[in-house]
């Protein structure tokens, strides 16, 4: 796969303590442009905590999170609020789906456009032509993403009434509507049946290829991870224990031990 790109996200020595517990222990990781990288590891390894640090939900104890947008200055993301991180170009989805259930599918995606648009309260009430044009543009952009993830037939349904797989795809559409440089997916295939998973695989590839967006995913479905991602980073007990191509990772004794337990001499 394309490893040619420049560095996009660079995380150096990220550490996150909760009181006496070190949930993430100096983890470094790099995502290049055009890459689909994966972060794997047993339950409780600190993967989601890592995502939470990167997206501004937690302020990391130590370490640097750097974003290198093309043709612009490097930006340090530590300590920024989540909405600022989203503005910088990181979007994410959640392990347990977090849609705005009481809003329609279309509105959920339109909300994603919020940080890229500007109409204020007075102009919205007065409804000048600029506001109406902007609104039209938001709706068009939102339809673009709904078509892309195949949810166009659900536009006016409440998000909470959607089938499970469709809710996951809606989360991706909402994240993509924020115009990210990097998309972070937290267990996108969790709870999906094999058919839905293969549709997801196609979707992730399409986003990566057609939109030229880098992707970092946490996933437990090894078949999916091994098929689409390179490189793969492996975490256990908060530490990074391996990184490399799917082949390397699969044969790495530390990884096998983490997943299957230590080999015992019989």
């Amino acid at each position, binding site marked *: 796969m394309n490893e040619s790109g420049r560095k996009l996200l660079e995380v150096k020595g990220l550490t996150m303590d909760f009181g006496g517990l070190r949930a993430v222990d100096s983890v470094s990781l790099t995502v290049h442009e055009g890459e689909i990288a994966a972060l794997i590891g047993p339950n409780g390894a600190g993967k989601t905590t890592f995502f939470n640090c990167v*997206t*501004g*939900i937690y302020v990391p104890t130590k370490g640097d999170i750097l974003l290198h947008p093309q043709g612009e200055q490097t930006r340090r993301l530590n300590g920024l*609020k*989540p*909405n600022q991180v*989203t*503005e910088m170009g990181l*979007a*994410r989805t*959640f392990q347990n789906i*977090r849609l*705005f*259930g*009481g*809003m329609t599918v279309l*509105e959920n995606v*339109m*909300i*994603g456009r*919020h*940080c*890229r*648009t500007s*109409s*204020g*309260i007075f102009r*919205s*009430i007065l409804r000048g032509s600029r506001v109406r044009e*902007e*609104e039209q543009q*938001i709706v068009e952009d939102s339809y673009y993403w709904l078509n892309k993830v195949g949810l166009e037939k659900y536009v006016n349904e409440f998000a909470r009434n959607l089938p499970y797989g469709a809710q996951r795809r809606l989360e991706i559409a*909402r*994240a993509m509507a*924020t115009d990210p440089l990097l998309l972070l997916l937290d267990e996108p295939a969790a709870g999906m049946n094999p058919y839905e998973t293969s549709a997801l695989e196609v979707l992730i590839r399409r986003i990566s290829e057609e939109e030229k967006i880098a992707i970092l995913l946490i996933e437990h479905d090894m078949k999916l991870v091994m098929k689409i991602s390179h490189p793969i980073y492996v975490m256990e007990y908060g530490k990074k224990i391996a990184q490399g191509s799917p082949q390397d990772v699969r044969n790495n004794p530390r990884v096998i031990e983490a997943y299957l337990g230590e080999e015992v001499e019989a």
Partner: protein
Amino acid sequence: MDYFLELFFSGLTRGSIYALIALGYTMVYGIIQLINFAHGEIYMIGAFVALIVSGVCTIYGLSGFAILILAAAIAAVYAAAYGFTLERVAYRPLRGSPRLSALISAIGMSIFLQNYVLLAQTPDFLPFPRLIPDLAFIEPVAHIIGTPELVILITTLITMVVLTFLIKKTRVGKAMRATQQDLSMARLVGINVDNVISLTFIIGSVMAAIGGVLVASYIGQVSFYIGFLAGIKAFTAAVLGGIGSIPGAVLGGLIIGWSESFAAGYISSDYEDVITFVLLVVILIFRPAGILGKVHKQKV
């Protein structure tokens, strides 16, 4: 029949004012789960600003509706500034701390603002000029509904339509609804939640000020204390309808307005406040989430 209609319209008028104030309570609660007990004081400050403005305007020879509109506009700006500052000073620093702390801060702000107006203005009731002139076309039905009632009804109706439009259709409205449903997720899709909260306080305060101006010119007097009772009643309306629910606030306001008006008309005017609080107690016993409120199941 005429007597019934008269009570019906006077109840509708009061109810729509309660609804206007209750919207401020319910919108703030919906977003940050805080009962903003100082909201009634914003209403009172709105009325005072209007009194000052109308005094100045009368000197310059303006009259009637012109003063009313100008006074309401200036009162709205002042109230917005107060609401914004209130959130910044008293609530934002406490965000993330236990809800009780913010609640106590709210009560503190309420007491502070009351006493501030008491000291800065006067402890007495001040007469408020009748700004709404009688319109000729309403003469035939004046024994059922007077001009002030009509003006109040129309104004509150317009305000609520604008609010509904704002929340349902505009970009900021979507941001507000998203924040209400899931604050931290709203942040993650790039919404500046702090701005949304400030905006909610501003909108609520503007509506409270409009209510204050209308009531003051309807009743004809203001004092530093009017915010307390109006606030408590509007709060009751918000709880009755289901706190956090916008249609609920309007419904609750109207129910309270009518029950007060009918209780005063058919029983005795001594009972109008009693009825309000009996309703509150009954609702809290039998349907704590309110009429249109959602019953939240806590996931463990």
